[in-house]
């Protein structure tokens, strides 16, 4: 199983995402933003970081990269795609996921160990969890406040597209404590928290994050 990790100028957590893919038992494949080459991968991770310095809007410039257009096309055909933090921002900017991520309500960058509830355990990236399961992984962002018009939020809730929710405190003022959302078909997931930072006892607050990366192995095999 080959899982691509895209590096944009300013990507930071690509090394972490690569490690998580490896620890989950898949083969990580480095992908370069400027090339139209998905190298035959079965799934793609857009990692965290500050692509293009988060200038203009977080994820806005990266969303126009050549490779992202390919990712959008393949995702529409069902390829699993995970966007973490800046990767989530890129997916929203590219139109693959609804809503937008804006400046945190308290205007600070905030890094802390965050409790989350898995709302949907049937997306390509969450089948290793049980619905309702509580996990703890790091969150760290300055522009992580999920927003959308109220009617759109109602629709997303109605369609069950909230994949992950903050519990025991909302770190950034996200609407309805939304930490992550999924595409209608459950193949594309974006979330602000960082599961790739919670894959080893030595370095993470838990190993709760590994499930995202093991889930996709089943999703691809099952597809």
């Amino acid at each position, binding site marked *: 199983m080959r899982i691509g990790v895209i590096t944009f100028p300013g990507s930071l957590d690509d090394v972490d995402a690569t490690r998580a893919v490896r620890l989950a038992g898949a083969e990580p494949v480095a992908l370069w933003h400027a090339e139209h080459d998905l190298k035959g991968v079965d799934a793609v991770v857009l990692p965290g970081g500050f692509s293009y310095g988060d200038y*203009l*809007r977080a994820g*806005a410039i990266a969303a*126009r990269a050549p490779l992202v257009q390919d990712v959008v096309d393949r995702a529409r055909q069902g390829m699993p795609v995970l966007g973490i933090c800046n990767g989530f921002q890129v997916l*929203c*900017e590219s139109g693959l996921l*609804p*809503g*937008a991520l*804006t*400046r*945190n*309500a*308290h*205007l600070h960058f905030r890094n802390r160990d965050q409790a989350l509830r898995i709302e949907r355990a049937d997306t390509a990236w969450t089948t290793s969890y049980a619905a309702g399961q509580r996990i703890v992984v790091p969150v760290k962002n300055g522009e992580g*406040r999920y*927003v*959308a*018009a*109220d009617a759109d939020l109602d629709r997303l809730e109605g369609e069950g597209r909230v994949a992950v929710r903050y519990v025991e405190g909302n770190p950034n*003022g996200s609407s309805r404590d939304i930490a992550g959302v999924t595409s209608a078909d459950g193949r594309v997931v974006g979330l602000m928290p960082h599961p790739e930072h919670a894959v080893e006892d030595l370095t993470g607050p838990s190993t709760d994050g590994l499930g995202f990366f093991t889930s996709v192995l089943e999703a691809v095999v099952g597809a």
Partner: protein
Amino acid sequence: MPRVVVDVVLKPEISDPQGQAVLQALGRLGHDGVRGVRQGKHFVLDVEGTPDAAELRQIAETLLANPVIEDVELHLPEG
């Protein structure tokens, strides 16, 4: 070189913590006359030749602003 100004503002239904922060700071400093503040972005573009209004509108609406949450105002040079 002609200058084009693009102002990007949050849609009214999207909350604006930066504007809120300014408003509250103004209140504490005794500037009670200010009742609302919204913060947006202001771009100044130097454009070669005669600006192409359609192209600039597209730039403003698809790149400089995120249409999910923001509106744009395009100010082309007069004439």
